[in-house]
């Protein structure tokens, strides 16, 4: 029976890339000198799984390469080798090479064998650096084993239990893998084989005597049998050089005495270790159950699916209950009908939530690459940079995760490269030697905000303007605000490498950054101060998210205010209201004076009922750190709404973050609180100008 292994390839690649991520983050967290054994273990396990998988699928080059990494890690794990910064760096580079190999293999492309060879040599160099591992003749199969004993090989007796194949393990694969370690002599015991009439095709009857020659460590062999220890009788014992050479394998196979002894002692210990490894691997995969990988598939935590299936079940029950009720309905059953409808509503909402949850992934899938990037780049540039990340758990839509990665890399790289100064420069400027780059992600008013902030030298507006004029992007007599000048770095013509490094450095591919963000329906803002640093604020819409909203009414219109931005709702009395310069209305909320934004004015509602401030309600909201009171007619109720984009068929409208469909099928618009506050701010600026003119 042949199985088309190709159907499992995608799973293997998904898991391997996940494994690489684990290795990478683990390596980055590792402190040279004092490594946490659990951490090394998890890195080792990841490498081991990749090796096992690639062996199974016949990607021998990957298996060979991973094997060398694994050997190094194994020595670190056993404490036989110090964890040096050099070794960690080499391992990190190897992770990259491995990633390339996997990518190439998954795309059926050619693997850059030169690079692989070079990296392997690098690993071997580190391995050889250990005094114990003196002679390294063959890179992929000669490790510390030769140094630890003089044995020439191993005698392995492998008797699978009859159910082994049903656990998904194929003895043939194990033997093949053993064969890849060195010269293998195989002898099969055909004795237990039943006559064909009694033969059970899914049982395994055979057992093997194997002689493996070559400089192979016991760990390597253990690794191969790691997954099947519980399903077979296994003994591994060394062949001493005084014994017969493996060429005479058949004879050595017939001396069973030492093997039983050895089997008795280490087996339970090994088995426990094997079990540990398996459970923790499983735990690891549950934790990282969703990957940011391919564009077409999504890995979802099984519990999420189970919850969904449960809910569908409930929904079906409710539906049949309701339809039974509907068949012979009379008014006495109205109470039951109400109950049923309430149940239906609850189930529907729960189901909606969990379906949404499936598409939402924590942004850490994007953020996780940055520690590595910062680590590598800062070493390369000789700068000291600390990366601070917050809000990694912020959940965003999968599409956002996929598309925001590259723009973020661009921005972070720019911050490192051009924002943060060299240590001596920083000290001269009176700043700490170590620069800081911050990555923050959070939800705000129906948006996801991602902030990239550095404490570097900031954007030099004068130089930017000068360069823009020189390049003819702006007329020489233009008077531009700071914001408009910063905007220039997004201009396509402004972003060629040589220009920008002349100016401030920022801007390589910035037009692409902006385009990508705009494609997601988002925007990017720059704040900068010379000598203090700059921050890039990316605002992305939550296209598929649900939002907790407060419905408010103004006249005959209904709007939704995101609940997160509401602080409280109050009814104001005349005496709480003050006028600023006769125009701006403010009210005093405890010790703070807040501006009042009359929503019916700013949204142009003509039939608003409440004109006097004491007739309606003030919804106190906060957006981008600014507070104000939104004046509305009345509050209607709270409900969860599905955000629908207005941009999909129309365009972005200032003051609105989207729309939703209410229970009656009509559309209600969702207010963008920060946007409204900005709009109100502009209006008051206009007011003050008028006031000046009239004065």
């Amino acid at each position, binding site marked *: 029976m042949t199985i088309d292994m190709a159907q499992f390839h995608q799973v293997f690649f998904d898991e391997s890339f996940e494994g690489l991520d684990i290795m990478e983050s683990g390596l980055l967290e590792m402190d040279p000198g004092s490594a946490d054994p659990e951490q090394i273990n998890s890195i080792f396990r990841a490498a081991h799984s990749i090796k096992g998988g690639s062996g199974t699928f016949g990607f021998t080059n990957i298996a060979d390469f991973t094997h060398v990494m694994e050997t190094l890690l194994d020595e670190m794990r056993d404490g036989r080798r110090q964890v040096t910064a050099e070794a960690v760096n080499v391992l990190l580079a190897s992770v990259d090479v491995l990633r390339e190999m996997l990518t190439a293999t998954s795309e059926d492309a050619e693997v850059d064998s030169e690079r692989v060879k070079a990296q392997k040599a690098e690993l071997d160099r580190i391995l050889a650096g250990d005094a114990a591992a003196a002679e390294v003749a063959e890179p992929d199969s000669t490790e510390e084993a030769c140094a630890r004993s003089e044995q020439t090989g191993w005698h392995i007796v492998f008797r699978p239990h009859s159910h082994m194949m049903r656990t998904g393990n194929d003895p043939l694969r194990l033997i093949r893998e053993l064969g890849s370690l060195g010269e293998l002599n195989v002898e099969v015991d055909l004795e237990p084989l039943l006559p064909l009439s009694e033969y059970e095709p899914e049982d395994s009857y055979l057992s093997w005597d194997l002689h493996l020659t070559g400089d192979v460590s016991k760990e390597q062999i253990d690794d191969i049998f790691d997954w099947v220890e519980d399903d077979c009788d296994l003994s591994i014992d060394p062949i001493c050089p005084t014994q017969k050479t493996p060429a005479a394998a058949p004879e050595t196979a017939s001396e069973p005495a030492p093997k039983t002894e050895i089997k008795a002692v280490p087996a339970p210990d090994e088995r426990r270790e094997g079990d540990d490894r398996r459970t923790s691997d499983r735990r690891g995969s549950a934790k990282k159950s969703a990957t940011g990988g391919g564009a077409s598939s999504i890995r979802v935590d099984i519990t999420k699916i189970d919850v969904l299936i449960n809910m569908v079940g409930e929904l079906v029950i409710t539906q049949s209950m309701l339809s039974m009720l509907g068949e012979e309905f009379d008014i006495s059953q109205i109470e039951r009908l109400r109950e049923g409808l309430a149940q239906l509503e609850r189930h529907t909402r729960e189901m909606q939530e969990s379906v949404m949850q499936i598409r939402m992934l924590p942004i850490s899938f994007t953020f996780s690459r940055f520690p590595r990037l910062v680590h590598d780049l800062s070493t390369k540039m000789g700068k000291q940079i600390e990366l601070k990340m917050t809000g990694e758990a912020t959940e965003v839509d999968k599409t956002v995760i996929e598309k925001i990665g590259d723009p973020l890399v661009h921005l972070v790289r720019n911050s490192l490269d051009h924002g943060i100064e060299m240590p001596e420069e920083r000290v001269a400027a009176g700043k700490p030697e170590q620069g800081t780059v911050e990555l923050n992600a959070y939800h705000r008013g129906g948006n996801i905000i991602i902030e990239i902030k550095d404490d570097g030298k900031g954007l030099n507006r004068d130089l930017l303007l000068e360069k823009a004029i020189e390049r003819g992007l702006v007329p020489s007599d233009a008077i531009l605000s700071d914001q408009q000048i910063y905007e220039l770095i997004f201009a396509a013509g402004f972003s060629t490498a040589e220009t920008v490094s002349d100016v401030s450095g920022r801007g390589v591919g910035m037009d692409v950054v902006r385009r990508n963000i705009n494609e997601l329906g988002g925007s990017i803002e720059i704040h900068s101060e010379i000598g203090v640093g700059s921050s890039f604020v990316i605002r992305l819409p939550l296209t598929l998210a649900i939002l907790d909203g407060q419905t408010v009414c103004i006249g005959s219109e209904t709007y939704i205010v995101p609940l997160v931005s509401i602080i409280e709702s109050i009814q104001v009395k005349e005496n709480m209201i003050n006028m600023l310069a006769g125009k701006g209305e403010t009210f005093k909320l405890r010790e703070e004076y807040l501006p009042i934004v009359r929503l019916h004015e700013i949204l142009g*509602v003509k039939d608003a009922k409440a004109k006097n401030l004491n007739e309606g309600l003030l919804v106190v909201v906060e957006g981008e750190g600014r507070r104000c009171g939104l004046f509305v007619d009345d509050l209607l109720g709270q409900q969860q709404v599905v955000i629908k984009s*207005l941009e*999909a068929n*129309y365009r972005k409208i200032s003051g609105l973050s989207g*729309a939703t469909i209410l229970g009656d099928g*009509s*559309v209600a618009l969702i207010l963008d609180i920060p946007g409204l506050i900005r709009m109100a701010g502009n209006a008051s600026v206009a007011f003050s100008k008028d006031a000046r003119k009239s004065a």
Partner: protein
Amino acid sequence: MAESQVAELNNLQREGFSDEQNAQYLTFELADEDYGVDILRVQEIRGWDVVTRVPNTPSYVKGVLNLRGAIVPIFDLRERFDLSSQEYTKDTVVIVLRVNGDTGMRIMGIIVDAVSDVLNSNSSGLVNAPDFGGRVATEFIAGLVSAGEKMVMLLDVDKLLGQDQQSEQELAAVN
């Protein structure tokens, strides 16, 4: 009446597909003038329904509508063309069109007085709109065809609705 028109049009549309030589246009009335749009751009025709007003938009944008879960903007074509506006009646229909914009296909609706007919026409019957200088905006008119006694102005849907989108996006960028 709107429903019967829809049914009739659906029939016509089906018949029309067998005839590939001719382009087909859905014609409609607007202040006693006849307009037409490429029938392949028409997604559906529906009766006028109350829409949700969207603030800070030009007056010809009547609002947005829930079209099976999609938020679709509805434009009043009379106001768009600065024709005298009129109360919406039971004959008032919304033609839902597929518009090709910069960012892919969009769905938008236009409010017209009444749908009239499906017009078969080959490209030879198409003439360019005469130049009125600046007095009459002809940039949305793809051409003129005659249907019997009447002249039908064929609208360039992408320019008409796509451009609106465009210009206001630029406006927003300036702001």
